[in-house]
């Protein structure tokens, strides 16, 4: 996906992932995008290789007494697309705040 094809919604999603929001509901809350946009967009980004997903460890979820979540993270290509999106939509950097608890695995390890 090139920066030329990045829609505003996708750019917001990528920005949210970059800032540490990692699953659908959390991204919805942070961005204010409707659920009908967020979930299909995440699937599309995953299909296009900009995002990877994996399941949270069952042990962690059990400790917090909730079902395991599916976490999304940016790939290297997704990171490039996010930077292109932020350049294209400069106000995005002001729209979203960094997540309070920064996660260690925000970006796929090179």
């Amino acid at each position, binding site marked *: 996906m090139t920066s030329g094809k990045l829609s505003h919604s996708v750019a917001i999603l990528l920005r949210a992932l970059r800032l540490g929001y990692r699953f*659908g509901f959390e991204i919805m809350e942070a961005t204010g995008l*409707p659920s009908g946009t967020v979930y299909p967009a995440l*699937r599309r980004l995953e299909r296009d290789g900009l995002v990877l997903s994996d399941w949270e460890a069952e042990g962690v979820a059990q400790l917090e007494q*909730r079902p395991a*979540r599916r976490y999304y993270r940016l790939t290297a290509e997704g990171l490039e697309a996010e930077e292109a999106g932020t350049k294209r939509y400069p106000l995005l950097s002001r729209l979203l705040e960094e997540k309070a608890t920064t996660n260690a695995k925000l970006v796929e390890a090179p």
Partner: protein
Amino acid sequence: MRAGETVGNVEAWLLRGLGWVVPAARREDWRREWRAELWQMRGATDSVQGFGKLSLIWGMTADAAWLGMEGLRGWLLWSVRRRSAGGCLVELLALSGLSVCLEWVLAGSWRVMEGALVRHFLGCFLFVALPGLFVALVTAALRPRKCQSKRMHVHRVLSAGVRWRLFLGVKVGVTVVAAFLGSAVVAVAARRVMVFGADWVELLSTSLMLILSVKWALENQERRCQHCLRMLSQPTRVGMASRNFLEWNGTELICAEGHGLLHVTEMHGSWCWYDVWVELDPTWQGLFRPQVLRGGSGVAQSGFFLLPGWEAEFLRQTGLRRQA
């Protein structure tokens, strides 16, 4: 905590119902993810403003629909590439759809197009259809199929013979429709550019299209596996023509799924005037195991070429694996 205990009855019912839209390979994963998402909303109801249950259910529906469409698109592409019965019908329907689009462009409006189609059907196609079908049937080189095996895979809902005839009937029907629509396009175009003789062009093009397309449909059936209805491949010459009196010679085609071989004799005599379908028993399956894919992105050694975006879906659906 078990995921099944985390959602209410309505959500559980929706998860079950919408899950059927999602391709089977991804269904459980999808349900598991959505159980977690729904739990999240139940836990955060007080603090979340504007994200009601309905909103999330809409997201769930959109997500399932997107995955369903992706699955359908993948299946269509995969069917066409495998040259399966479904793929064949999809191609014919796509051709019919293209003809309708062309017709609409030429006619300018639905009303004019409808009139042109009715005129073409009543004024030409109706008279050509019966003799055309007769000519196609009597000139097609149809030979009875002789099968060496009597078991013919009866484990499916419909027996192989019924599926064979059903597919043939549907294919011929769709082919006739495609021929009708295609010839209507030619008729409309001819009327637009020709002052005289458009009727003759319409008659000739309709006859030709109908006869050739039905002949194609019948001959296409001759080259299909009798079990899975996919096109047979890898034609191989067997025997020598100069020894025709001593031994069989002709062409052998094989089903890529390993269901059987079709022997097409080179010279039809009174002792061998049919094609022989030799069904392969399960001991042959070892030769037809899923192949390991090698090479760069998008290129599979098995001969299929996939766009990069489809490769993951292809591998997921077929159970093949990529070797580094």
